[in-house]
């Protein structure tokens, strides 16, 4: 028993009593779900056609990766490495859309937000396009770009751009005038004002925009891959479902959830901590 006590004390020291308690408590429902799943595999209350066994989901990884010739082939998006190919093509699209969409949305947002009259004038456009952004564009995107990666990329890009544009515009508009004046009186140029005042000042709003873009964007991307794509995790689970390979569908859903949780926790939350919280700015959800 003393080993157990020592371990408990050591853990409490390392991660803190409250956090340890929360971790343990929080994992209970997950463990319960897993046990329930395992019991279903054993007692077969629901047919494996409806709920696959955990073993078959695990095996699905190897079935999908069958014939994959190492890391080089996986990175090259080889068709024999189905799972990694779909993962990489989804993530790749998200990254590509972010690399293009974030600067574009922020740039246009800053330009529009700098002028009060202009930004008031353009506000309804932002509201309208954010209302139809994402899923509702899928059919038109298919008309424009056909089935394939262009359509899915467009959907993601569209979601990111409008959310960032709108949030940056509102953010820049809300930056106190005196910050701008103080930089100007120190001899700063327009560009100094943009980089040192508008963008950091609009940061709370921009990060809200990023989080929303990731939230809505991922959902829209998955839908777009199902409807108008020919690769990616959404495409994978959709085609697997058509062939009634439920274990592959489960695998895909689990991967999607993990990637989504990870981007939020390890990318967006730290970003928020590093800017808004450190600067003591108030985070206002719009």
């Amino acid at each position: 028993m003393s080993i157990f006590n020592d371990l408990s004390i050591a853990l409490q020291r390392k991660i803190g009593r409250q956090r340890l308690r929360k971790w343990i408590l929080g994992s209970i429902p997950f463990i319960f779900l897993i046990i329930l799943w395992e019991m279903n595999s054993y007692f077969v209350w629901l047919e494996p056609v409806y709920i696959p066994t955990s073993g078959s989901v695990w095996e699905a990884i190897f079935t999908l990766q069958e014939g994959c010739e190492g890391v080089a082939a996986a990175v090259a998006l080889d068709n024999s490495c189905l799972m990694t190919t779909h993962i990489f093509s989804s993530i790749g699209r998200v990254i590509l859309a972010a690399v293009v969409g974030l600067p574009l949305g922020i740039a246009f947002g800053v330009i529009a937000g700098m002028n009060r009259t202009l930004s008031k004038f353009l506000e309804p456009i932002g509201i309208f396009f954010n209302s139809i952004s994402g899923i509702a564009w899928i059919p038109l995107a298919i008309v424009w770009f056909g089935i394939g990666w262009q359509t899915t990329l467009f959907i993601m890009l569209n979601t990111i751009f409008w959310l960032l544009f709108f949030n940056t515009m509102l953010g820049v508009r809300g930056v106190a005038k005196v910050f701008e004046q103080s930089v100007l009186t120190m001899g700063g140029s327009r560009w100094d004002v943009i980089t040192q005042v508008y963008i950091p000042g609009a940061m709370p709003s921009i990060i809200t925009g990023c989080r929303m873009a990731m939230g809505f964007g991922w959902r829209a991307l998955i839908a777009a891959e199902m409807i108008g794509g020919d690769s990616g995790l959404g495409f994978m689970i959709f085609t697997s479902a058509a062939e009634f390979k439920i274990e592959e569908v489960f695998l895909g859903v689990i991967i999607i959830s993990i990637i989504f949780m990870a981007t939020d926790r390890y990318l967006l939350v730290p970003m928020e901590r590093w800017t808004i919280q450190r600067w003591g700015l108030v985070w206002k959800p719009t």
Partner: protein
Amino acid sequence: MAVTNTDRSISEAAGRRSTLAQLWRQIIRIDAMNLVILVAVVLVIWTVISATIANPARYLPSPLVVGLSSVDMIYKGLLPSYFGDTMLRLVVGSFIGIVVGVPFGLAVGLNRTVADMFYPILNFFQSVSGIALFPILVIWWGNSDTTVLAVILYTAFFPIAFNVLSGVREVPIRFIQAARTLGASRWQIIKDVLVPGAMPHIATGIRLSIGFGWRAVIAGEMLAGREGLGWMIFSAQDGDNTARVILGMVMIGLTWIVLDHYVLRPFESETIERWGLVQR
């Protein structure tokens, strides 16, 4: 050297905004007028693009064509019927989601241990998109209304349950202690402290739920092929009727603006104003 009258009038003139700028400002100040100008500008740009590209009927029909197609669809009764189908799904799905989600969140949130237990799993499921679950649901129930409704229910339930749970947890312990020193019973604390204290979060959760639910309806209809606005734009794309696709998109956008800005946001801000605990 004194200031002459000419100087004065120069300065005064500079002090007044030029009449044109002033007129523009006044026009902009009237929101409706602002909107009319903006819509006109957008329509003109749209028309010009549509007139210059090759094969506009396929890629970007002009606003006029889209308008005519809406007249046609209203005349045939298709548009109102699709619209009704979609709204019915949204209302039923999110209603059930809210009716189940609010009490669930409250019940789970009342006890600290239970709340800490359920917080991570609710957070997990609220961030797993309902659309991603669609293929699983299709295997279970096929391309049916049940599938679409299940997607909406899922997307509506988790945000509300999660928000109610965190709302209850965030009611300051001081308030509970204060009620206790006044001799309040457990039930009275729930009724008079915890539920009102969580009201702003409940309102936010409802708005989020319906927001996610709305997107889920559109996607669900497209994927499962059930009649409604989502299906309308999807089948129109299949049938090469781009005017109808754009009409559907505009309908989807406008419906959400009306719903969000005139129903949900006022509801949320009024609740927050009425019940909000302004604390820093």
